[in-house]
């Protein structure tokens, strides 16, 4: 059980890293539009047409 003295702070550190990543992605504008990406999952990638 002594391992908990290492494991628990490590877990908290991991959580802190996740929060830091979250903060970065918010300020990068990735959460500004959360509705439209839901439509994009249905689109195929090979629908591009030759230019007119």
């Amino acid at each position, binding site marked *: 059980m002594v391992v908990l003295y290492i494991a628990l*702070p490590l*877990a908290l550190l991991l*959580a802190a890293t996740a*929060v830091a990543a*979250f903060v970065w992605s918010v300020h990068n504008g990735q959460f500004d539009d959360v509705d439209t990406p839901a439509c994009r999952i*249905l689109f195929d990638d090979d*629908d591009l*047409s030759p230019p*007119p």
Partner: protein
Amino acid sequence: MNASPALDCAPSTVLPTSACSHCDLPVPAGRRRPDQSLQFCCSGCEMVYHAIHENGLDAYYQFRDNTPETPPDSIDSDFVEFDDPHFVDHHTEDLGAGERGITFTLEGVHCSACVWLVERGLASLPGVTEARLNLARATLKLRWDASQTALSRVAQRLARLGYTPHVASESTARTVRRHEERRLLVRMGVAGASAGNVMLFAAALYAGWVDAMDPSWQALFRWLSLAATLPCIVYAAQPFFRGAWGGLRAGVLHMDLPIALGIGGGFLGGAVNTWRGAGEIYFDSVTVLVFLLLLGRYLQQRHQQQATDRAELLATLAPLAAHRIDTPRLGDAGPAQGRRVPISCIKPGDFVIVGIDERVPLDGVVVDGHSTLDASILTGESRPIDIKVGDDVWGGAINLEHPMVVRVTAALGDSRIGRIASLVDDALASTAPVVRFADRIAGGFVAVVLTLATATFIGWSIVGGGEALDHAVAVLVVSCPCALGLATPLAVQAALGKAARMGILIRHGEVLERLGAGPPPAILFDKTGTLTRGDMSVVDFRGDGRWLAHVHRVEQGISHPIARALRRYLEPYSDPTLHLESQKALPGLGVVATCDGHRIRVGSPAWAGTCTDGPARSDSEATPVAVSVEGRCVGIFALADTLKPGTEDAVTTLQRLGHRLTILSGDVPEAVRAIAEKLSIADAQGGLSPEDKLTQVKRYRENGPVVMVGDGVNDLAALAAADVGIAVHGGAETCLKAADVFLQRPGVESVRRLVEGCQATVQVIRRNIAFSLIYNVLGVALAMAGWVNPLVAALLMPVSSFVVISQSFLFHFGKRS
């Protein structure tokens, strides 16, 4: 499309109804091509359909789940002004390496197929590196390399696909709002991470009650819980502490105060106990409280933002560019002889040429040309105004018949519209915000909770046992009005979402309480464009039906409202094969042409030819239009501004619900009286200027809350001054700034739905508040009795929140009749 007229003759050919291959609306007889598989209801749809196919984007039709609105009329603009260096500097940003960025607002965006169409349609243009459409706000973020593709080409592609682009004004206010929203989201994320970790530690501690845990491990978990709670209290919960402190200093008590009390009390009590090494800790309840409250706020703010953006999305009333010319004379080339410049470059004294069906860009004086003007959006007058050299024209009015040259007298900010806008700002500043019910009871709430907590502490101290602090803290934590704090915002936010899906865009939640609580407010209606179509329509015809196809052919290509009304009415009888020559439109008189070998005149009865039959309707508000063949009168049309469909039923329902209705109009009093009689509305005034309407609204407000429904610039100040201003579909876009509600679907029916929806919402809010108060009373009673430990508190709170949340989302906004 109007129903077919009651006539004694039948249309010459009867074809099976077919639907437009693009928008599914029925195709009128005149446009049907029986030998082709593709049918279109209008040239707009035809153009969009071909644009989609040329670019290989046919999958659009598989993706879409909504039929589109008919495409806008003005698709033939070439957007050359987007390449103007002044425009590029002002509206685009430099992203380095030759790339530039711009944000457009698009018309006509309605479903996920539009996302696909726009993004794919632009991706095939060389140099476009990013094109991302935001569906909720209808904004397009574009990054492109100007050396490979001109911005005008991008705009043309968008317009051809049916999404006319407008420049999105990224005001400082919007940037500030966006940053605020992001900060709130970050706080919520931190609170969530904190809550999650604290709950894990708490689970370990709960297990320790069942099977005793070694005190050193307990201490470890308690200290780690405290550490994990710190970011939440210090950073995430800041808005509540600051709000409470600010409220205390200003002497205004609102909901942040009991929230701050619960959070702060719970944290401090837990911190003290952790340091002591004995007693209960409540970190798990506290962090979850913060998370839920922040979630409520974030959702509320996001919905508010979306409604505001949608309302601001349409173009301004003045066009973005105008045709400037150097010599104040009309040539033969029409608007093409002018150079297109952005409107901000035009100064007083410049000459501009205004083409047919174009809006006058700025206030000015006519120096060449003779035409008629549709100023209904400014004055409410539904009849076109005759304009000759020397007359004043107002920016925003539509030029109907003939190109004219105007000398500009006022720059963009000084026009009549600008002055009305300042009236609007003044009026907006004077309307006081509604005080929320929850905020009103906040003061009493705090007093009661503090008293009870103190009583608990004293009581348990007397009893002894060292649990006094724990029970007092439990009272504070359980009383924290999470459900109460969520009750109003959640219901409001759910209502806004439901209303938006019905095409009713509400800009802020206060509208719900203003319309739904208290006695039914008085409703003031504008007439032209709100109750009526705003455009002339044929209401009756008497005469020989054989000439109807000829009348339609003779009126082809004329943009006068009477011609448009006749064409609309006669669409089922149209026959494009009729031969037409020497067509001439004479302002003020009518149209004369030789059609199918006959000399036909359509116009005022005095000019077209004396008719033996009297006019079809002798009311003064109907305009008679006579048809004569070789000088012999064969029929008379009666034209008037007709009510929008559904208006009568909606008005009756509103009267039945107890609202006092009034009509305020800029149109002539006879026309206003006629409409008022048809709708059984006793109180109606005509001939009002925008300033007059404002005065009237203020007068009615003395008797109670007032709702104003309007569409044009002549309603702006009145809309802003009313307690709730409703801007109607198809109206002036500047209305959207002054109005609290924007109706996307035509008809007064939406007003009825809005009113009923607001009442339903207020009922839900009251139920939510009642429930949360009951929960609080029960919880505090249990805490005082000493039966609440952290586990019980942690269970009670989500249950109450869950009930409030589900109540808020399951109600019906607006009964379906």
